[in-house]
């Protein structure tokens, strides 16, 4: 009896600042209407993932009052979110290989969930031509789904773009006039993921066929500019075989009619790897860079003047940046492997006013953000 009594003695508890209840993040960095973007978002959706990638939950931030709703539903723990055509897509990546389709605001369960097959590793989703196209990083095709039933309605074969490992590494997609422009990274998985080329491919949304492709440089990523005919392309690998920084990357404008333009910015200029680009309009954006010590820096980039302005540096891992409204850019900051004390959270900056040191940290999420989308 004594033992049982001892057992039932409540274990100790500690104070914690975490919680699943709504919390206020404070100022979200509203800078007023600059007229620079045409978007009108109400909510940021944040996929938050534990530092060890063992767990993930969905959170939202109300853009009007900054209220955070955390722990709305559990997610695959390697995840991306995409807001598209009135849906919120959750992409469960390698090991999950699934897509969930939510109606924004109704988080108790998705309206649809489907597997893209073992090892499919969905990277991006885009709705055009009446179909939802899913790019599969682990396969050699785009899958096409019918939004009415969310059943597979077709496959766009991109095997002809594969490099020596047989997988083309299909990444971001940008829609321009019923054509999907697709980043094809062509990394050689059999040899340490070294770059084997790098393409932008054009896929007709209606016909679902590969129409053209352009060589753009190694490891490309595509960065959309709202309302513009064209998009930015970032290229470049991060390290050489000796894990030395490779400053071979550039950012250039891609015109669907003429292809890739001249480099507008080179990594050599910054002395660091460009890891992400978020454009709030055609001439203003934010760059994330990584140096040899794995410290990250955020820069404002004025394409018109060709100038870059350092905003801040951090030892946190800046996983990505996405343009919001009013010139605001949201950055996902996570704990860095090289600095276990580094902070995770959402960073908001104004890419138009571009005042160094004006970034705002929001770190009251259960986990650090991994992916952010707006609707």
């Amino acid at each position, binding site marked *: 009896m004594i033992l049982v009594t001892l057992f039932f003695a409540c274990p100790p*508890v500690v104070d914690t600042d975490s919680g699943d209840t709504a919390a206020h993040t404070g100022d979200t960095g509203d800078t007023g209407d600059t007229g620079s973007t045409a978007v009108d978002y109400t909510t940021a959706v944040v996929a938050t993932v534990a530092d060890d990638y*063992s*767990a993930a939950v969905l959170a939202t931030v109300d853009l009007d009052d900054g209220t955070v709703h955390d722990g709305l539903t559990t997610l695959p723990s390697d995840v991306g979110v995409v807001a598209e055509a009135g849906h919120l897509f959750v992409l469960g990546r390698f*090991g999950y290989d*699934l897509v969930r389709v939510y109606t924004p605001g109704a988080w108790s369960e998705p309206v649809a*969930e489907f597997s893209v097959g073992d090892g499919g590793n969905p990277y991006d989703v885009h709705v055009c031509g009446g179909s939802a196209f899913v790019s599969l990083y*682990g396969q050699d095709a785009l899958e096409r789904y019918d939004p009415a039933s969310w059943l597979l309605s077709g496959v766009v074969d991109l095997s002809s773009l594969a490099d020596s490992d047989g997988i083309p590494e299909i990444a971001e997609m940008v829609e321009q006039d019923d054509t999907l422009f697709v980043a094809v990274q062509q990394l050689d998985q059999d040899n340490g993921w070294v770059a084997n080329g790098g393409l932008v491919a054009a896929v007709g949304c209606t016909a679902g066929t590969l129409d053209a492709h352009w060589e753009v440089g190694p490891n490309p990523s595509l960065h959309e500019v709202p309302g513009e005919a064209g998009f930015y392309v970032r290229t470049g690998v991060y390290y050489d075989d000796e894990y030395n920084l490779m400053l071979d990357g550039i950012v250039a404008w891609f015109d669907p009619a003429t292809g890739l333009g001249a480099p507008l910015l080179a990594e050599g200029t910054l002395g660091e790897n460009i890891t992400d680009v978020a454009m709030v309009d055609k001439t203003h954006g934010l760059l994330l860079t990584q140096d040899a010590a794995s410290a990250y820096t955020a820069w404002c980039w004025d394409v018109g003047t060709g100038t870059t302005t350092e905003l801040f540096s951090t030892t946190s891992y800046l996983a990505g940046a996405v343009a919001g409204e009013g010139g605001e850019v949201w950055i996902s900051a996570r704990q860095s492997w090289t600095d276990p004390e580094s902070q995770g959270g959402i960073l908001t900056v104004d890419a138009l006013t571009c005042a160094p040191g004006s970034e705002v940290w929001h770190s009251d999420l259960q986990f650090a953000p991994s992916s952010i989308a707006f609707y």
Partner: protein
Amino acid sequence: MGWTLGAPRPIPGAGIPRPLWPPWREVRATPLHRAPPGVPLPGLVLLTAAFAAEPASDTVVVEERAPRGPDPSTTSAAVTVLVPGPATPASADVASVVEGAAGTTVHRMGGLGDFAAVSLRGSSLRQVEVFLDGVPLNPDGAAVVNLAELPLGAFERIEVWRGNAPVRFGAAPLGGVINLVPGEAEGGRVSLAYGSWDTGRAHASAAGRRGNLDGQAFAEAFSTRGDLRYFDDNATLYNLTDDHFRTRDNNDKLQLSAVARGRLVVGDWRVTLADAPLWRDEGLPGSANLPASTARMRTGRNLAVARAEVCGPSWVGEVSAWHLRRDEALDDPDGELDGTPRLEHDQLDTVGVRASASWAPTAWLQPSASVGGRWEGVEVSDPKGGDDAPPRARLAGSVAIGADVRLFRERLTLSPVLQLSALDNRELGTTSTTQDGVSPGAEPFVGSVDPRLGVLVRPLPALALKANAGHYLRPPDLVELFGNHATLEGNSELRPETGWQFDVGARATLPDRAPVTGSAELGAFWLLSEDRIVWLQNSQRSFTPVNFGETWVQGVEAAVDLHVLGWLDQSASLTWQLSRNLTEGSRSANRELPRTPPLSIDEAVSVHWQERLRVGYRFTYTSPNYWDAANLYQSAPRTLHGAWVATRPTERWPTVSVDVLNLADTVTEVVPRNPADPDDPARVVTAVTDFAGYPLPGRTFMVNVSWNL
């Protein structure tokens, strides 16, 4: 003093408390002291120094075979001695036997032959040190010992020390010690088994002695296709239309293992040479949602031991040296496990030496000491990026001194221990990311002083009251720091884990000659850890170790072992525990610790008729437990029934048995869809697993035939 090999012979001299004798020995002794009348306690120890009030005598008063293994009633430590015997199903393995002890939770990655490891009292798997005949297979928790690699038939008994382990192990694990003791019996035995999934097992053993030499040898071959049927939800929690059953491909195994030991007695000395090789070739099936069809692992292991023991008038001493080598070759040509093709070769070596001694200078005091050191190194070739990692090594040493102080006619025994441990990390190298010193290499030397105290009170011969407290240290092992398999990724930033463990308990035994014999145990335990190292499964179901901050486990363990009227054997154990992450500021604070099920139950019962026919039943239950620190993902409860029947019509006949594991074919359970949201009423079907993505098998048949030669 002398060692005996042949017929027991009297040993002249002073009192020899039983703990001074290696527990596997058959001895006759001439104790100095007679047992006091009215204290019908069994065993040689009770006739010796403890009852010092009795006058000394030079008369041989006892010739008795010493009981096998430690007597749980005469040690303060919580120990269970498991002896595989007629009441053990023929299909049993080391893991299933260990699971029968209180305070244990076995975690499996599949069926027979698949990875299995044990947690003691809510410890992590590495906080349990496994010894083979007193030699550590994972010193300081270096790697998790896969219990499936250890052939049950080679062992006469398995000692499960929960918490405070004896000084002679030179170990201070947070969870405890499991000691596998090879058999002593002479003669031979051959056994063949075959069953579901083309699982086959054959083993042979032989033991004999000639003059001053004796030897034992055991060899086993095990193979399985492992193509079990399992439930796959296709990772789509909300989409039930794509749920289906699949076959576990690439789950075959072939394992050859042996344990051999030879001993020579020369005067007061006994010299032992032993070797335990293992070769294992297996397919790696990957997780259920990320299956692999071509990935394979080949493992070679060899443990070579040399030991010299000597006994004096009132003391015994022992020096052991060993070399443990483990080679693991992972071939994942298509990168199925984590997306990166690999051809890796890991080689881990441990060279160790340990000396221990125990002394009985007086009737009430028995000091003991142990000192040892080891060198361990790891070489990893073809890691990520294609480059070979530099060899890494470290030195570790420990000194432990302790004593058993037996007072009040052995009604009170105090067992204090002080252990000093040191690590030299200077050869560990640097991290690949920062080039800084490897943690704990940031401190080139790590030292720890770890006291322990055990108290045993025996108000009645049949009742033992116990209490233990101790401080423990475990450095991260080389796999935890530098592991680079596709499914095991090291973390070079890990810090050593430390902790306190406390327990209290009571053990009651029934008289040996009563119609009902047996024992009952009840205990409570607390485990408070700092920087606990927890292996978590990431999004790709790979395992990565991380440090938690402060953690807490408390629980109750109980066991009842009964033998009724000579025809019914029953053993039951229960572990009920609460765990909590007390890391301040952590987003996972106050959550349960991963893989720490609140409730585990094991019940085994069998009835027999003169051992010519035996029918048995076993039930195990493991309650749902969380896989992640935030307690968002929960395993299904594991409720398994098993039954078996064995017959041997006469002594000349072989024993034939038929076992059915998971009798009810429980491979799925209906569980809450969102365990983190108690308001969500939805339920889903999920596979029964111990590790996410590694389904357990359904109904399994095994037929076994064995002969005693």
